[in-house]
């Protein structure tokens, strides 16, 4: 394990609490994500994992606690600011733009990179066309990378679930994020699809140096991919460490056995 170094901490979550009416989804959770790592968040159903991601990208407002991202601390960000700050994300239940093609979905991910104003877009000429082609080139790289060339013009609503998950990853990658939040990217996939997705996640992390926070139920995948694992149970962080440390932790074993019964 690397020595703790505040310089390479990309995101710090400090004593965040969140409740919905009587349900305490998160209770004083603190953890950090280092630059360049794959950080897994695991835990039984209803543990608060998705809620944690929602707090990080500004979708939920925590009751208290603070989030420091790239050295700036705040209680809450607007989702728009989070996106502009370089946080991209995929959803547990795919949240694609159903009426648009795979290509347009991923192109939409380039929105924040668009420089030409509306007047130029109206004319679609000169610099506007050049910019559009440039975005298209970047997006085609992602399409090649994710091996979805054959479905680029298909409306995503018609695609099978596994491919939708890939397109959604593509849309997040198109934002060229610094921090990528993946909420169960392999849920409902067969073994082969899981292997493909694992490979994509590894490659994104290796080639682009993108920091990744990953929620996943499949322990084999988590142990394989992640550098560090945080374990949540009933909104409380019960363990945090390398995959090996977490695997051996008695509290974690109990938490999982607890729901098995």
């Amino acid at each position, binding site marked *: 394990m690397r020595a703790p170094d505040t310089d390479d901490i990309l995101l710090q979550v400090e004593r965040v609490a969140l409740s919905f009416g009587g349900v305490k989804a998160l209770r004083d959770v603190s953890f950090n994500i280092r630059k360049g790592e794959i950080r897994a968040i695991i835990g039984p159903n209803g543990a608060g994992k998705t809620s944690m991601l929602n707090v990080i990208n500004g979708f939920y407002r925590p009751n208290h606690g603070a989030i420091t991202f790239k050295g700036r601390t705040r209680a809450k960000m607007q*989702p728009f600011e*989070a*996106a502009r700050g370089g946080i991209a994300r995929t959803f547990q239940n795919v949240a694609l*733009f159903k009426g648009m093609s795979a290509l347009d979905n991923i192109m939409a991910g380039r*929105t924040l990179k668009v420089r030409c104003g509306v007047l130029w*877009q109206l*004319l679609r000429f000169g610099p506007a066309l050049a910019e559009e*082609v440039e975005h298209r080139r970047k997006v085609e790289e992602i399409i090649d990378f994710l091996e979805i060339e054959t479905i680029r013009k298909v409306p995503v609503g018609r695609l099978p679930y596994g491919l939708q998950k890939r397109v959604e990853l593509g849309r*997040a990658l198109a*934002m060229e994020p610094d921090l990528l939040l993946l909420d169960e990217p392999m849920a409902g996939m067969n073994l082969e699809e899981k292997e493909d997705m694992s490979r994509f996640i590894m490659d994104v992390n290796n080639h682009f140096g993108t920091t990744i926070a990953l929620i996943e139920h499949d322990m084999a995948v988590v142990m394989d991919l992640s550098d560090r694992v945080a374990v949540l149970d009933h909104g409380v962080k019960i363990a945090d460490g390398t995959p090996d440390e977490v695997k051996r932790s008695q509290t974690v074993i109990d938490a999982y056995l607890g729901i098995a019964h």
Partner: protein
Amino acid sequence: MLYREAGQFKTTYAEDMAIFPIRQDRIALAILLGIAFIGVPLLATFRIWPFGSDYLLWAILLPFLILALAAIGTNILVGYCGQISLGSGAFMAIGAYSAYKLATGVHIPLASLGFAIAIPPLPVLASILLGGFMSAGVGILFGIPSLRIKGLYLAVATLAAQFFFDWAFLRLPWFTNYAPSGSVNAPELDFFGVVVRTPVERYLLCLLFVTVLAVLAKNLVRGNLGRQWMAIRDMDIAAELIGIRPLYAKLTAFAVSSFIIGVAGALWGFVYLGSWEPLAFSIERSLDLLFMVIIGGLGSIMGSFIGAAFILIVPILLNVLPTELGLPLSTQTITHLQFIIFGSLICYLLIKEPHGFARLISIGKEKLRLWPFPY
């Protein structure tokens, strides 16, 4: 076998991103434009069939073009951005009355402040375009609630706009320059010295407006702004998380949509009607426009043309066909038939094919592309 893209390899992204990437489509479009810009005017000038009388121009082509333009505007808001509006008629009215006021000179006495705002009469082209901008401004105003209210509630809010403007143009005599009858006369259509009078000239004028605005609209919807609109329509939460601001996306949709509808309204008043009464832009116009985009295809520029043609031609066919077949129907029966046809068609399309005729055509084309091999 004729409709094939085999052998047409696209070597650049720019080619693949053209409006009509397939050559056969481009040829078809070129022929259509040739007929519209050259064929029709020639036939009409020399009074060759079917242009022996001005009926086809006046009763079909002119309203078709203007309503197709208004349908494009409606489609941007409803089809592309997913904001249901029942107020398109009101925005046509705003465009028409603003253009009328600007073309005849605006005088707003501010007695309490001791002065008046006076704008001299503007040229027709400027009036029509500014009518569009006025409509866009009001559209933005009425778009603000869309940030909070959605779906049915927004539809009701736009309905309120429709009734408010119906009332305003009927009851506030300032808008009609105090004409006792409440009806207004469009100014002479003088474009930089060229005066548009005959039906053919009017047709060409509208064709020009429609072509230019349709191309610009197409550019917008296939560019980044269009993708923002569709993203907001399909899933606003995910859109926000990729950095799209709902405020910006929705208000631009309201503005662009209202601008186009406003220009269509000004053309309707100035070029088609010539003189009009306040009820020329009633709720029925709004509903017609909504039907056009549903039937033609939500989220399709081409569909707006198809829908406009359909809504316009079906009543005419219902009038003409039974008489030709020796079965004259009463006017009432025709009206009822019309309701039945539109109603059932809309129900069918909303359930089965929300992308309307435009999608049915593209499915047909996909099949044709593969024919005679089923895969």
